[in-house]
């Protein structure tokens, strides 16, 4: 056992540094919460900032955020084991622990922001579907409508106002949710790879980038599957916002890197060595070149030269896929990279991912597939495509 562990070590490691404590599941956790926050920010573009062009993705963005938010705590649960103990976080809140307060941030965002906003936005369709459906579906939609059949213009206008208010609250909440994840890493002062006040900001912007990329990708793929026309004005606008957000994110990460290089504190040689060796593929190739510069270039191309509609769709598909890989690589580099070097700055360890174990690659892949399955369920339950509402709108209201 000891021999196999030591074979993973180069140079000098303290005994408690040899084995990584935070596995690939902890890589997924900031990745998934980032997708949630980013998708919500995209939804708020339409609602708060009145960017009408992105309207076709508004509901899809909310449902995507919900699907991923439902999965967000699962990597933590699987990593820690004993999921029943997570309730203690609520029952005996520990106010001086950022990690312990996550439960409340999560619950607030899930119930008071996302579910409520989706419910208000869909209430008209929920009532209409409750009227039209039969059997268990009717019961389900009636339950979702809370037994209220009122979809008069006045009541929908009130919903609109309350929804607007919730989105305004939702933006700082989304910032809190993901800024918090960066805060957790940024406040670990013993680890120079993590300990920087830039961390929450970098996490937040990369979250916005990944969330926008995800919704754009999901919108194009689901439109293709559904056989509905892709609204090119919408995708062009989102792609433009994605490019802006990406440029800001890339610049922030660049400033962080530049600052580290210029400051060159006692950890720098060790971290620099790591980036050129163990993290070369995930940091230089996947995060910076193929997951950063290339998608920014692809997104910038239609801004600089005339590109056909078909080619733009291809560009966006490629750019969003690369972006999602790049941001995943960024999470990997932060979480895993931060555990590969010794606090003595004289040695490095290796992370070998297991496959079919509790914290292995297989559960990680399943956890990344799960939100898409939930999203498919949500799309069936609450179709975001406008047509559903229009078809049934003319029907006479019936008691629910």
């Amino acid at each position, binding site marked *: 056992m000891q021999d196999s562990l030591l074979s993973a070590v180069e140079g000098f490691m303290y005994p408690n540094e040899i084995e990584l404590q935070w596995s690939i599941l902890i890589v997924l956790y900031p990745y998934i919460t980032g997708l949630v926050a980013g998708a919500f920010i995209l939804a708020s573009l339409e609602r708060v900032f009145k960017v009408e062009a992105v309207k076709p993705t508004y509901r899809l963005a909310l449902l995507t955020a919900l699907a991923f938010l439902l999965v967000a705590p699962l990597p933590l649960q699987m990593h820690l084991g004993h999921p029943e103990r997570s309730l203690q976080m609520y029952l005996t809140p520990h106010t001086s622990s950022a990690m312990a307060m996550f439960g409340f941030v999560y619950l607030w965002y899930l119930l008071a922001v996302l579910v409520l906003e989706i419910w208000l936005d869909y209430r008209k369709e929920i009532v209409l579907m409750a009227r039209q459906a039969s059997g268990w579906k009717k019961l389900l939609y009636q339950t979702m*409508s*809370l037994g209220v059949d009122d979809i008069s213009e006045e009541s929908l206008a009130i919903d609109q106002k309350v929804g607007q208010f919730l989105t305004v609250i939702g933006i700082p909440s989304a910032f809190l949710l993901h800024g918090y994840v960066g805060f957790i890493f940024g406040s670990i002062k013993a680890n120079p790879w993590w300990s920087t006040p830039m961390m929450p900001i970098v996490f937040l912007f990369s979250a916005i980038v990944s969330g926008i990329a995800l919704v754009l990708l999901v919108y194009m793929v689901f439109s293709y599957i559904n056989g509905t026309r892709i609204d090119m004005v919408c995708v062009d606008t989102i792609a433009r916002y994605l490019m802006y957000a990406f440029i800001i994110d890339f610049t922030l990460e660049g400033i962080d890197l530049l600052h580290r290089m210029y400051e060159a504190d006692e950890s720098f040689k060790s971290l620099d060595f790591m980036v050129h060796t163990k993290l070369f593929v995930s940091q230089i190739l996947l995060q910076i070149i193929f997951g950063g510069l290339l998608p920014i270039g692809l997104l910038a191309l239609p801004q600089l030269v005339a590109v056909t509609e078909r080619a733009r769709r291809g560009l966006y598909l490629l750019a969003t896929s690369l972006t999602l890989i790049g941001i995943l690589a960024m999470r990997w580099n932060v979480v895993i990279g931060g555990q590969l070097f010794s606090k003595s700055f004289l040695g490095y360890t290796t992370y070998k991912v297991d496959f079919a174990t509790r914290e292995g690659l297989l559960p990680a892949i399943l956890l990344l597939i799960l939100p898409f399955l939930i999203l498919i369920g949500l799309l069936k339950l609450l179709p975001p495509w406008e047509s559903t509402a229009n078809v049934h709108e003319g029907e006479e209201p019936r008691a629910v």
Partner: protein
Amino acid sequence: MRHLMKNKVHLFRMAGLFVVGFLVFAGARAVFVPEGFGVYGHYRAGALEDNRAFPLVHAGRAACAGCHGDEPEALKASRHAKVGCEACHGALAVHADDPAKLTPKKPDAKTLCLVCHMANVAKPSGFKQISPEDHPEGVCTECHDPHSPADAPKPAPAPVQKEAAK
């Protein structure tokens, strides 16, 4: 009231759901949070009493010295002065109460000594360390007196090869 609720019934019902949620939360706290939680800190105050109620299993060095005067005395002046008797010999409160009730077993020196003295680069260089592969002969206590360890081991019975601990 009816005027206030006009067109807002669904919102009041949703607010009602949140209130129910809060009540369930408060109820769950009343049931699941143990009595005395938070009195002294972020733990159940009664846990201190529970710990206190555990029977004592260690007798302490003074109890050992009462009967076995020589070894504890020798230990006091040695490098092992801060190692308690029961750290090596095990918890022996039962033996101290009634020696006839429990006769302590002699520890297996080859295993026990390595608990502390196994060579490891992370240990301070001044700390005596040994790799059993480099020094496989005999049992530690044949040359080293655990009650009065010296820098140089006592003369070993032939034919054990002498090798000072690193």
